[in-house]
């Protein structure tokens, strides 16, 4: 029954999937009226699109918001939240969300629950579920009843969006005050090097993780990818070691991909990595650890030594292709 406000994030100028997920999550938590806060520059078209899932779309359209800055957003939203007093404020748990939510929570003096993967009830305080210890443990957490309301950051991909939302909402334009966060100024966004591969467009991806052990071993992955006509992707540890460029990193702090087929080799399957795999592709996993989390999200799995399996797989694929 209590109202909710969802912070919409724009990624690459487009509405991020999390907006739809959070809208539905808000409704399932009991909100009849779900509003969206859309921050950006020249976003009228997006506002229109959002009316499908939201009852009200509050538009903050200003040059200051061309680049979504966490501090600027928190400074902007705090008085708005105080004024409109939604019981729950939903923020996607992305890098952007992590940057702004704590500050927003302090400014509005609301309890903050982060990285939530399920909401159990929102009647008497909030009961929700999040993970701890690198995803190995789930925790039931509770926000004590608070008249002022709550702020929740939800893990993208954990909540299903509505199938055919038809909220038919209205659009409301809000004023954007000047000099929102003077102590922090945007300098530049670092563009990836031109000519680097774009894995976000690939249909088939062969992803490699820490299990490859050494840079030299990447050869077998390249070979396999070639046999499949696929692009090579990877998880964060491989990029941290500088074996592959960041343009190949899939995950919450990397890129989101939407392939048809995703072959995960030597990847444990942490949510930070799988969070970048969207659209429910066919996932095949090869890992020597039968307890690796990847096997819970994959469609098919092989427990074995990737140094044996991968060359064998390449061989069989080449045979099958004739």
């Amino acid at each position, binding site marked *: 029954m209590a109202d909710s406000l969802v912070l919409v994030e724009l990624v690459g100028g487009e509405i991020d999937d999390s907006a739809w997920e959070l809208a539905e999550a808000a409704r399932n938590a009991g909100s009849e009226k779900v509003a969206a806060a859309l921050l950006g520059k020249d976003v009228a078209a997006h506002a229109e699109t959002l009316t499908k899932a939201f009852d009200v779309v509050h538009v903050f359209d200003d040059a200051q918001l061309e680049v979504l800055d966490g501090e600027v957003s928190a400074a902007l939203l705090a008085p708005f939240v105080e004024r409109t007093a939604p019981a729950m404020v939903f923020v996607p748990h992305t890098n952007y969300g992590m940057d702004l939510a704590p500050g927003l929570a*302090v400014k509005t003096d609301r309890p*903050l629950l982060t990285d939530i993967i399920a909401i159990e009830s929102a009647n008497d305080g909030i009961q929700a579920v999040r993970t701890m*210890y690198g995803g190995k443990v789930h925790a039931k957490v509770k926000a004590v009843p608070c008249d002022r309301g709550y702020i929740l950051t939800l893990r993208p991909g954990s909540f299903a969006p509505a199938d055919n939302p038809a909220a038919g909402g209205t659009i409301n334009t809000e004023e954007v005050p000047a000099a929102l966060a003077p102590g922090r100024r945007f*300098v530049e966004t670092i563009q990836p090097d031109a000519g680097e591969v774009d894995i976000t467009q690939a249909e088939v991806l062969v992803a490699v993780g820490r299990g490859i052990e050494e840079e030299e071993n990447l050869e077998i992955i390249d070979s396999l990818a070639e046999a499949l006509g696929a692009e090579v992707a990877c998880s964060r540890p491989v990029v941290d070691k500088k074996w592959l460029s960041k343009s190949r990193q899939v995950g919450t702090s990397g890129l989101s991909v939407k392939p048809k087929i995703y072959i995960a080799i030597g990847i444990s399957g942490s949510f930070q990595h799988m969070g970048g795999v969207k659209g429910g592709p066919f996932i095949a996993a090869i890992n020597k650890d039968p307890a690796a989390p990847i096997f819970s999200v994959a469609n098919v799995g092989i427990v074995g030594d990737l140094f044996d399996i991968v060359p064998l797989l390449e061989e069989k694929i080449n045979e099958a292709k004739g």
Partner: protein
Amino acid sequence: MEIIVCVKRVPDTAELEVEIDRSGGGIEERDLAYGINEWDNFAVEAALAIKEEHGGKVTAITTGGEDDEEVLRRALAMGADEALHLMDSAFEGSDAQGIATILHKAISARPFDLILTGAISSDRSSGQVGGMLAAKLGIPQVALATDLKVEGSKAIVTHEVEGGLERVVELDLPALVSVQTGLNEPRYVSIRGIRKVSSMEIPILGSGDLGLDAAAVGSAGAVVTVEELFLPPKVEGAEMLEGDEEEMVEQLVAKLREQGGL
């Protein structure tokens, strides 16, 4: 420059199968080894690098019990000049904003130019304390820094944003930066190094010293509580292929063909 680093002692659970303890409120501690939170380690290294370049002092701070003093000694062995231990039974059971409150009281009582923390901790992973602390102190902050430089009265910070991109921002000091792993290569601390600082004094401050109302912190003041821990349910998951390596691979190839991958 006065630099403050907030550090936390966490269990090392990366290679272990974590078990829930009997009460259901925590994890089984029997085989656990503890150390500094990996993100905080990068923060300490960043603080030391800035001090080495610009001069000044690095102070390491932690909240927590007696055992947590270990991470302060480690920070001192790495090269921090001072350490502060915020300890009081009233602090036990604090949630993130409680910790931020305690830190706020301790830090606002001293001069500081820059506060560094890890973006998240490997145990709870809430990622809240840094941002909350900055807001309470009324200073600018940025989260998930992958590069950090100080120029005069500004910090130039590169941080992770959406779409796998990175963005550079300028912060006016005093400011707070929460760091992401990979920001630098933390120096090693040898056993001998830790022994060398074993006799350095580390002052302990309690709620009285900080002027804190016990009701605002600890379990008394927590607005978010952990009710119960449980192991994730075994999801149906993947179809695990069987047979020898050749058989499994052949089955996989058949499935890939079905999916149109060949």
